[in-house]
C-alpha cells in the first residue's frame, strides 16, 4: 500500500464506521456498532503510527486529493499535509479516541442511543482528522465546523433534557461567533495571497509585512495583524478562550466520554493547533502575539479561580480545561509553539484520564456528580482512585510527570518573552499553578478521602436506578455501594495513565529542543528569542526536574495541595466561613463573572427584542400597514371616487368630453 492511500485510510476508516453504525445501527445491533467503530478507529490509530514512523524517517507529504471548486485563477482543493505537527495530532486524536470508544462500551451500556453515540464519536474522529491533516484553509474550516457540528449533536445527545439542548445551542452559537472572525480571516488570506494553500501562503507571507489596511478611516493597520487576530478569534471560539469561553462549562451536559474526547483532549485544542500551524503568519505580527498572550493569560488565571468553587465533579475538570487551554494560548503568544503543542499532547492524556476517571466515579455514585456527596471512594474504586491521582499529579506539575515538563516550559517561555503583556502573562501562569493545585486536590480529597458522605447498602445490588440518567438528585439511601467499574472502563484509564506519566521526560528533548518539528513550526529567532533562551538553559529532562525543586512554581503547587488538604480534610468548617466573609467575591465567582447573565440578557435578549421590533414596526406596520395595504386602500378610495364619474348618463360623459376638448385646445394653442 503506498503512503497516499494510507493517509486516506486514516480519516476514512472512522468515517466508514460512523456511517455504518449510524445508518444501519438497528441492523447490526449494539455489539456490531461498537465493533465496527472501534475497528475503524483502531485502523486509523495503527495507520497513524506507521505514518508517524515514516515522517520520522523524513518523508513529509503535501498534495491535493481533489479540486473542490475553481473560480477565476484560484482553485480550492481538498488535500493532505503530513508533517511532524500533523502526525503528533493524528496520534493524539486516534489514541484518545480509541480509549474513549472502548470506555463508552461500559459508560453507555444502558443507554438507548448506544449506536447513535458510537456513530457520532466516530464521525467526530473523522472530522478532527480532516482538520489536522488539511493542507489548506478551506479544509481546515470544513473540519472546524464539522467538529462543531458533532460537538453540538453530542452535547445535546440526551435531547429530552432542557439543560442539554440549551447548552448545545449555546455552544454552537458561541462557536459561530468565533467562526465569523475565522471566516473573515480566511477571506482576507485569499484576498491578499490569492490562494488558500498553506505552503503558498506561508511562502508569500513575508512579502506582506509593512502593508497596511484601513478598516476604520484613518487608522491603518498591518494586514498581517488583522489576519492573525481574525484567525485567532476563530481559535477563541473553538478553544474556549475568554470571552468566548462561556460554552465549555455548559457543554458538560453531554455524556462524559465526549467531555473527555471533544471538550478536553481534541476539539478544544483545535484552536491551539491552528495557531501553531499558522506560526509563519503569527511570527510576523507582534501585536497579534501580544493579543494572543493576554487573552490566554486571562483565561488561564480567571477560569482557574472559577474551578476553585465548583461542586460538580465534571465542572471542576471543565474549568481546569479552560485554564489549561489558557496556558497553551499563552505559550503560543510567547512564540513557544512547540511548547504549546507539547502541553496540548500531555494535557490530552491526563485530562482525558481525569474526565474518564470522573465518569467512572459518576457511575460508581449512580450518576450523582456533586463532590460534596462523595468521600472515601478510594477503598471502593481502587483503580479509578490510582489513575485519578496520577492524572491530578500530572496536571499540577509534579516533577517527573508529563504535565510538569510541559507546564514548566510554558512558564519559562513566558518569562523569556519580551512582548507587550508578557509581564502580566508571566504572573498569571505562575499564580495559576497554585490555583490548579488547589482545585485539583480539593476535588481529589473530597472524592476519595475523608468520611463517606453517602449512604449505601452493602449487600443489595439493585441497578434499576442506574438507568435513571436524569437523576441529579441527592437521594443517598437505597443505592448499592460504589464499586469498581468494569474492565472496559478502567482499561482506558490505565492506558491513558501510562503516557500521563512518561510522555513528558520522554519527548521534551526532541519536541522542544530537537528538530522534531522541522519546518512545520516557524519561529523567528531574532524577534522572538524565547525558545533559544530556553534551549540554552536546558540540560536534559532529569536536570530540569531537579532544578525545579528550587523554583517558585513547584512550591506554589505544594502550597496549593496543602491548602486544599487543610480546607477539605482538617478544617472542613473553614470554607463555609470564608464564603460568608468574602461575600461579594464569592458571588462574583459563583456567577462566573456574570458573563452568562450578560450574554443571555444582552445578546440573546437583545437580538430577539430587535427582531421583534423590526418585524412589528418595520414589516408589519410600516411596509405592510402603510405601503402595501395603504396603497390598496388608496386605490380603493380613488376607485370609489372615480366610480361616481362612471354614472352611465350620456350627458355626463358628453359634458366631460367637452371640458376635455376645451382643455386640450387651450393647451395646443398655448404651445
Amino acid at each position: 500500500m503506498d503512503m497516499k492511500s494510507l493517509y486516506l485510510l486514516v480519516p476514512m476508516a472512522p468515517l466508514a464506521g460512523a456511517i455504518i453504525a449510524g445508518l444501519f445501527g438497528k441492523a447490526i445491533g449494539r455489539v456490531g456498532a461498537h465493533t465496527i467503530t472501534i475497528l475503524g478507529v483502531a485502523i486509523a490509530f495503527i495507520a497513524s503510527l506507521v505514518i508517524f514512523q515514516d515522517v520520522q524517517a523524513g518523508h513529509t507529504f503535501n498534495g491535493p486529493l481533489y479540486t473542490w471548486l475553481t473560480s477565476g485563477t484560484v482553485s480550492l482543493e481538498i488535500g493532505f499535509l503530513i508533517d511532524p505537527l500533523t502526525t503528533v495530532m493524528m496520534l493524539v486524536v486516534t489514541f484518545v479516541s480509541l480509549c474513549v470508544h472502548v470506555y463508552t462500551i461500559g459508560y453507555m451500556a444502558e443507554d438507548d442511543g448506544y449506536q447513535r453515540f458510537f456513530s457520532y464519536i466516530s464521525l467526530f474522529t473523522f472530522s478532527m482528522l480532516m482538520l489536522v491533516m488539511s493542507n489548506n484553509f478551506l479544509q481546515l474550516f470544513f473540519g472546524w465546523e464539522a467538529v462543531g457540528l458533532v460537538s453540538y449533536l453530542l452535547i445535546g445527545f440526551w435531547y429530552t433534557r432542557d439543560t442539554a439542548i440549551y447548552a448545545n445551542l449555546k455552544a454552537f452559537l458561541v462557536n459561530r461567533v468565533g467562526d465569523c472572525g475565522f471566516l473573515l480571516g480566511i477571506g482576507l488570506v485569499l484576498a491578499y495571497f490569492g490562494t488558500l494553500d498553506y505552503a503558498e501562503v506561508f511562502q508569500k507571507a513575508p512579502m506582506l509585512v509593512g502593508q497596511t489596511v484601513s478598516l476604520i478611516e484613518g487608522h491603518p493597520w498591518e494586514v498581517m495583524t488583522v489576519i492573525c487576530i481574525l484567525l485567532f478569534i476563530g481559535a477563541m471560539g473553538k478553544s474556549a478562550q475568554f470571552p468566548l469561553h462561556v460554552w465549555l462549562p455548559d457543554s458538560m451536559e453531554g455524556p462524559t466520554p465526549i467531555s473527555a474526547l471533544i471538550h478536553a483532549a481534541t476539539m478544544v485544542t483545535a484552536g491551539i493547533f491552528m495557531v501553531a500551524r499558522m506560526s509563519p503568519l503569527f511570527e510576523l505580527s507582534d501585536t497579534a502575539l501580544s493579543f494572543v498572550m493576554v487573552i490566554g493569560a486571562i483565561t488561564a488565571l480567571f477560569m482557574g479561580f472559577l474551578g476553585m468553587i465548583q461542586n460538580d465533579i465534571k465542572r471542576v475538570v471543565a474549568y481546569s480545561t479552560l485554564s489549561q487551554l489558557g496556558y497553551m494560548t499563552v505559550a503560543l503568544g510567547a512564540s513557544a509553539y512547540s511548547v504549546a503543542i507539547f502541553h496540548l499532547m500531555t494535557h490530552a492524556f491526563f485530562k482525558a484520564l481525569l474526565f474518564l476517571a470522573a465518569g467512572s466515579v459518576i457511575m460508581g455514585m449512580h450518576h450523582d456528580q456533586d463532590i460534596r456527596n462523595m468521600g472515601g471512594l478510594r477503598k471502593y474504586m481502587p483503580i479509578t482512585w490510582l489513575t485519578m491521582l496520577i492524572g491530578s499529579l500530572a496536571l499540577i506539575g509534579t516533577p517527573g510527570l508529563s504535565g510538569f515538563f510541559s507546564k514548566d516550559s510554558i512558564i519559562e517561555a513566558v518569562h523569556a518573552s519580551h512582548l507587550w503583556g508578557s509581564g502580566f502573562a508571566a504572573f498569571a501562569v505562575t499564580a495559576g499553578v497554585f490555583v490548579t493545585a488547589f482545585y485539583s486536590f480539593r476535588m481529589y480529597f473530597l472524592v476519595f478521602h475523608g468520611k463517606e458522605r453517602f449512604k449505601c447498602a452493602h449487600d443489595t445490588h439493585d441497578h434499576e436506578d442506574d438507568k435513571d440518567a436524569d437523576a441529579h438528585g441527592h437521594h443517598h439511601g437505597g443505592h448499592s455501594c460504589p464499586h469498581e467499574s468494569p474492565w472496559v472502563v478502567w482499561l482506558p484509564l490505565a492506558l491513558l495513565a501510562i503516557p500521563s506519566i512518561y510522555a513528558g521526560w520522554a519527548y521534551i528533548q526532541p519536541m522542544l529542543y530537537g528538530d522534531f518539528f522541522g519546518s512545520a513550526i516557524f519561529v523567528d529567532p531574532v524577534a522572538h528569542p524565547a525558545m533559544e533562551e530556553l534551549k540554552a538553559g536546558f540540560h536534559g529532562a532529569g536536570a530540569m526536574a531537579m532544578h525545579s525543586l528550587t523554583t517558585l512554581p513547584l512550591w506554589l503547587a505544594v502550597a496549593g495541595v496543602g491548602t486544599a488538604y487543610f480546607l477539605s480534610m482538617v478544617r472542613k468548617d473553614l470554607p463555609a466561613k470564608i464564603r460568608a466573609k468574602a461575600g461579594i467575591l464569592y458571588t462574583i465567582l459563583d456567577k462566573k463573572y456574570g458573563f452568562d447573565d450578560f450574554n443571555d440578557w444582552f445578546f440573546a435578549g437583545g437580538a430577539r427584542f430587535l427582531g421583534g421590533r423590526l418585524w412589528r414596526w418595520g414589516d408589519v406596520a410600516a411596509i405592510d400597514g402603510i405601503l402595501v395595504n395603504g396603497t390598496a386602500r388608496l386605490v380603493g378610495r380613488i376607485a370609489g371616487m372615480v366610480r361616481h364619474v362612471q354614472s352611465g348618463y350620456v350627458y355626463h360623459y358628453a359634458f366631460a368630453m367637452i371640458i376635455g376638448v376645451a382643455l386640450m385646445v387651450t393647451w395646443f394653442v398655448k404651445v
Partner: protein
Amino acid sequence: MPIVFGLLILATGGDDRNADGQRTLALLGAALGLAVAIPLWTGFDATTADMQFTEMAAWIPALEVNYHLGVDGISMPFILLNSFTTLIVILAGWQVIQNKVGQYMAAFLIQSGIINGVFAALDGVLFYVFFEAMLIPLYLIVGMWGGPNRVYAAIKFFLYTLLGSLLMLVAMIYLFFASGGSFEILTWHKIGLTMTAQTLLFVAFFFAFAVKVPMWPVHTWLPDAHVEAPTGGSVVLAAITLKVGAYGFLRFVLPIVPDASHELAGFMIFLSLVAVVYIGLVALVQADMKKLIAYSSIAHMGFVTLGFFIFNQWGMEGGLIQMISHGFISGAMFLCVGVMYDRVHSRQIADYGGVANTMPRFAAFFMLFAMANSGLPATSGFVGEFMVILGTIQVSFWYAALAATTLIFGAAYTLWMYKRVVFGKIANEHVAELTDINAREFLVLSLLAVLVLGMGVYPLPVTEVMHTSVENLLAHVAHSKLIP
C-alpha cells in the same frame, strides 16, 4: 422542451375524478421533463459563452417577435433545478392533496413548463409572456389549495409582482425602439444608452425583479404567500420562483445597463445587506415555521444579490450557486414542515416539542437540512455563502463582515426553531401520536439530502459549467456602453 410538458398536461388537466391515474401521469410527466432536461447538462459545452440548444421560430413577424429559446451556463442549471423540483413536488403532493388532484398536478406541470420558458427565453416579449404566465398557476395553487387566509395572500402576491412587471414591459418597449426594432435580448446587450436612459431602465427592471427575489423592502408578500400556500406551492415558490428575479438581474439589468448598475451597486449592496441582517433578526422571532423559513429565504437571497453587485467572479458564481443550493435547501425545509403539518395540522412552533422522540428518522433529515440552512460546510448551503463572502471581502471588509453575521443569525434562527420543535420532551398528545416518515417521504427527502451533501462536498461540476458564461458576463459589465 417546454412543449413536451404542455402536451402531457393538457391530457391530465381535463378530467377530474380518477386521481390515481392522474398522479401517475403527472409523475410520468415530471420524470420525462427531467429526462428531457438532462441532455442539456450532459451535452453542454462549457467552453463557450454562446447560447446553446437554440430554437427559433417566427411568432409575430410584424413586430419582430420570435419564439427564440436557448441556454447558457447561467440558465442551464436552473432548468435542471426546475425540472427536478417539479418531480419532488409531484411526489410530495401524492397523498396530501385529495381534492382536485388533476388540476393540482396539472398546475404544477404547467408551471414547470412556463418556468423553463422563462429561463430559456431569448426574446424579450417571450420572456415577458412567460414571466407573467408563471404567476397564474402559482396564484391558483395558493388560492385554491392554500390555507384560510389564502385569498388575501394570493392577491397580495399577484398584485405585488404584477405591478413590478408592468414597468418591465415599458422598459422593453423602450428597448425595442432604442435597438431599432428588435426584441432580441442578445441584441439589447449590445446597444449603447445614455446614463439617464440606463438609470430609468434600471429602475424599471429593478421593480420587476426585486419584487420577485424578493429584496427588502418589497418582500412582505413572500411570508404571507408561503404561509397560505400548500407545501408543494411553497417548495416551488422558494426553490424556483424566487430565482427568476435574480436571474432577471443577470440576464437583463447587468448586461443591458452596466453603467447604471455600477452607479447603483452601492444601493443594491445596501439592500442586500439589510436583507441579511434585518431579515435575519426578524426570522428569529417568528412563531410560525413557514414564516421563519420564508424570512430565511429572503436573507439567503440577499446573498445572491450581494454576490451579483460586487462584480467579481467569486461573488457572481457564489450567487448562482447560492440560488441552486437554496432551491434544494428551502425546498427541503418546506417539505419537512409539510411532513409535520400533514400529521398535526399546525405550523406553530409552540405546538411542537420533542418530535425526535416519535420521528427519529425525520429528525435526522430535518437536522441535515437545518444545518445546511445554517450554512454548514460540506452542505451546499455553505458553498454559495462562502464564495460570496470571499468575493465581498475583496471589495470591502465591512460588507463582508456584515454578510458574515449570517453565520450567527442563520444558525440562531434555524437551530433555535429546531430545538423547540424537535428536541425536548414530548410536548403534547399530538406529538406523542406522530408516526415516522413513510417510504415516499423518505425517498423525497433522501433525494434532496444526496444533492445537498453532494453539492457541498464536490461543487466543482456545477461551477464548471458557469465559468465561461460568467466570465463573459463580467467582461460585458466591465465594458461601458455609455453614449452621451
